């Protein structure tokens, strides 16, 4: 019983570590995707892809870049 609990604990720890690593890597790649908008008056605005607004831009752009114009 004790051995089973220890194995379950180890399995849980491994699954947690894998999930954390995956989330970290996903977050890192998402942060690499950015949107820069220049307005008519010369001012700019940047949107990160981890924002709702930025994600709309990057989702469409990713597909266009992939298939070409």
């Amino acid at each position, binding site marked *: 019983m004790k051995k089973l609990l220890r194995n379950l604990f180890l399995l849980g720890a491994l699954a947690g570590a894998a999930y954390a690593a995956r989330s970290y890597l996903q977050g890192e790649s998402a942060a690499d995707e950015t949107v820069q908008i220049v307005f008519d008056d010369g001012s700019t605005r940047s949107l990160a892809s981890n924002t709702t607004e930025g994600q709309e831009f990057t989702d469409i752009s990713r597909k266009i*870049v992939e298939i070409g114009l």
Partner: protein
Amino acid sequence: MAERGGAGTREELDRVLADLRALSEDIESCAVLSGERDLLSSSHGPGVDRERVGAMLAALVNLSEKVARENGKDHTSQLRIDTEGGHLLVVRLDDGGALVATTGPDARVGLVLYDMRNSRGEVEKVLAEGGEG
């Protein structure tokens, strides 16, 4: 290569896009979208769904105009989107249309945008002449 508009205009737009690609080697593909969001010309390869691409470009340009309005601006003059697979670059034309290009991830984006801004005048000239004829 071209999709809509008069034959002369289409050919001229094709020529301008070909010149732009020759000038800026980092550009992988490029297109011209009209102010009515029609795909006027593009450098698409075989197998590319033109209607789908046109619709996606129109959605992107409309989205950028929405952001401009929300920020109290008249319109967006330039858009740069960096994705994992490469960059999508948009330069607005006078009539509300857009000159759009895609590049690989390692492209010299500043240089490409410079070349696009230089080509913008020629695209606008072709569209104006096409509208007159």
